């Protein structure tokens, strides 16, 4: 199963990266969702796979009986899922907001903060005052 899972994680990562390199912000968000799933699976699988033995302590015992699944990666993944969801929700709202402000979801056109060099006012005229005064 490790082989299958490794292959699936690889496929998820590759698909996520391909989506995140898209020109559409929406596809970028799809990629973000996929890559957090891939990361969770990766952590989970590297803690080893144990079928049918959740990390629980039965009544009357002080420690788990027999071989149980590794609890540590489970705790980590649980936290990661929730954080990933927070990140995803915020990004989605940001995208909606950006679309209503800019009217586009094309990342190459979203340039309010970093205008393209060829459309910017000439930097030499903006800095020449400083250098001559300095």
């Amino acid at each position, binding site marked *: 199963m490790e082989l299958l899972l490794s292959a699936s994680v690889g496929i998820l990562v590759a698909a996520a990266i*391909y989506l995140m390199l898209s020109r559409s912000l929406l596809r970028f968000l799809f990629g973000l969702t996929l890559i957090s799933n891939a990361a969770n699976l990766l952590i989970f699988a590297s803690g080893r796979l144990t079928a049918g033995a959740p990390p629980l302590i039965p009544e009357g015992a002080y420690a788990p009986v027999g071989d149980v699944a590794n*609890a*540590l990666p489970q705790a980590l993944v649980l936290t990661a899922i929730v954080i990933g969801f927070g990140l995803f929700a915020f990004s989605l709202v940001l995208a909606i907001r950006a679309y209503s402000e800019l009217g586009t979801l094309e990342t190459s056109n979203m340039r309010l903060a970093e205008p393209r060099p060829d459309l910017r006012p000439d930097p030499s005229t903006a800095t020449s005052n400083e250098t001559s005064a300095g």
Partner: protein
Amino acid sequence: MADDHDDEGHWFSLPGLLPPIIAAGLFAAFWRALPTVADGGSIRHVTQWVPGMGVDLSFVIDGLSLTFALLITGIGTLVMLYSARYMAGHPQHDRFSLYLTAFMLSMLGVVLADNLIALFVFWELTTITSFLLIGFSHASGTSRRAALQALLVTGAGGLAMLAGVIVIGQVAGTYELSEIRAMGGVLRDSPAYLAIFVLIVLGAFTKSAQLPFHFWLPNAMAAPTPVSAFLHSATMVKGGVYLLARMHPSLAGTDVWLWTLTIFGGVTAVFASVVALRQTDLKQTLAYTTLMALGTLVLFLAAPGGYAITAAVTFLVIHSLYKAALFLMIGCVDHRTGTRDAALLGGLWRKMPLTALAAALAGMSMAGIPPFLGFIGKELLYKGGLESTASVVFVILATLLASALMFAVGAIVALKPFWGRAENLSERNSAKGEAPWQMLVGPLLLGGLGLYFGLFPHWLQDNSITPTVAALLGDPAQAKELHLWAGVNTALYLSGVTFLLGIILYLWHLRLRAGLTRIDDASFSFDRGWDAFLVGITRCAGWLTDRLQTGDLRQYMLVVFGTILAGLLLVIGRTGLNVQIPPLPDLHMKQYFVVILMIAGTGLAVMTRSRIAAIGGLGVVGIGVALIFIIYSAPDVAITQLMVETLVVVLFGVAALRLPVLPSREQEGARWGHAALAIAVGTTVSLILLTVTNGTLDLRLTDYFAAESYPTAFGRNIVNVILVDFRAFDTFGEISVVVVAALSAVALLRQGGKHAKSQSRTEEDRT
């Protein structure tokens, strides 16, 4: 600085009187060290500073540092007395006095420090105080530019010097100069010698304004005249010369030392004296003659011979005396007439006889006329040049040319304003009598000393020259004797040629000046080159920023994933992979089914153009992950994953209503490169995961949590106990992140878009 602050009462004030008193006190203190040093001894004082790094505040007084210390405090006393009167009534007089005193103390630190790190700190302090003093008239753009230029040039040199100091510390194992000197050739024989040499020389050449770093010094004349006299001729600019002299025992004696210093020093000396002839502003003229003197000093520090070093040390003292006197004298003239233009001034001796006397004394020392100390210095220079091991012809020619030009410039500066014709001097600029006594003491005393030491050189020889030569060459017997009449020899003939050439140059100087001005204006200007350099740096930064910060998200992502791939490959290259493909065990259908489900969902999300289909695909992947959690004993994780995945799908679905359709494959264009990168990273991650699962797992933490979960935390679900007990703070942080994300999302959504805003505004307008 011709503003009249003629308020008799003001000079007798705290900022006027305190600095000269401090300087005079220090001078007296150093004077007391003279007998010890003259007997060949030295005084050392150490205060611990950063003992862990071998950095101490250690000071040493030997011949070299005492000569410098006496020049600094002696000339400092006179300059400060002078500025008490010169600056009296200036609204920022106290600030000026503070800067000037701070400079003097920093400069003393430079020449007394025995620890290289301490020396560097004081060195930078002189750079900063020099910056403050050049920019003292901060309302003037010229002053600000000159100050910044000096700061950047000497500051950059200082950084190079710091690097050199650190390399020296690494090679020698100590920063104490006296210990390094005691090790003999440890630096010379080290493979790092060339690096040390280049870095130290960069520091010295920028500070002492050698070509091609010379341009800041003439610009620094924007400072008030006492500053020019003190910092930019007598003391600070000699810092580089001091550094070369200090390092002479440890670094000199190699071919690279000999030729670098000879060539740079010689070229600077000749170039500067030619340009000095071109100037009409007397202060600028003196600035270039200072450059000439610095070039000569560097030139003579190149050779290891006794005559060359004696000549350099003697010339150092001579130059400090006459140059400070001349600067102060020009200040007097400027103060009384309101101009420093050599073409205007003339016939001042009637109104200003004492100033004229001071100018004549200093000018004759500068021209090297017997019986002044300048004559002795010039003879020594020729003798040193004749025994040069580099190229006698080059050194002698450079010295001869520079000395002849000095003769002519000396006449222009010291004679013409007082004895020349006055027909150009307007009524407005005619002298208003003699300058006040505080301003006359300095030039008269310094000029007089040039004559006194020329007639009676023995005191100077015993107390300053011989101990300094001993500090450089390690042997007082190497010091040559100073005397006016050394018999008929080559040096005397050369002096005769110098005078002849000097007189011709003076007589022709107006014609020469016109020619020089034309050549100078047509040729490359280092000063303008500096401006172009600064603009170039700004442009280059802008260009680089445009390349790195393209503002295109895809490019950033490419860089991010490319870096991740490179990093992963680097790790793999170091540790290697351990991939064993196990035979597929007989898994249940459910496992195959889950994996196929996930892959199908992924494919759908990537391929489709429909938003709803893509969201559906993502949902399928999420459910698949949840199923894997269930199969492999993680029920809590699976429940969370299911809930979150449901929410993701719902949110995406709602958002899709407000977002545009996905771009088609044609709109996206061919993305083979992206696909290759994505597959490369995906494959690498797969291989790494396989390697990890084949390795051994450190279960200590897991075992600890399993063992302690019930006894100490009273929980039977180990995952829950970890989350809310052992790692409770992590969980708290996680909750905070979600809350912040939710609050921000609400804020963003409630603000409404541009369209919403404009709509509501028009509605408001209507009502």
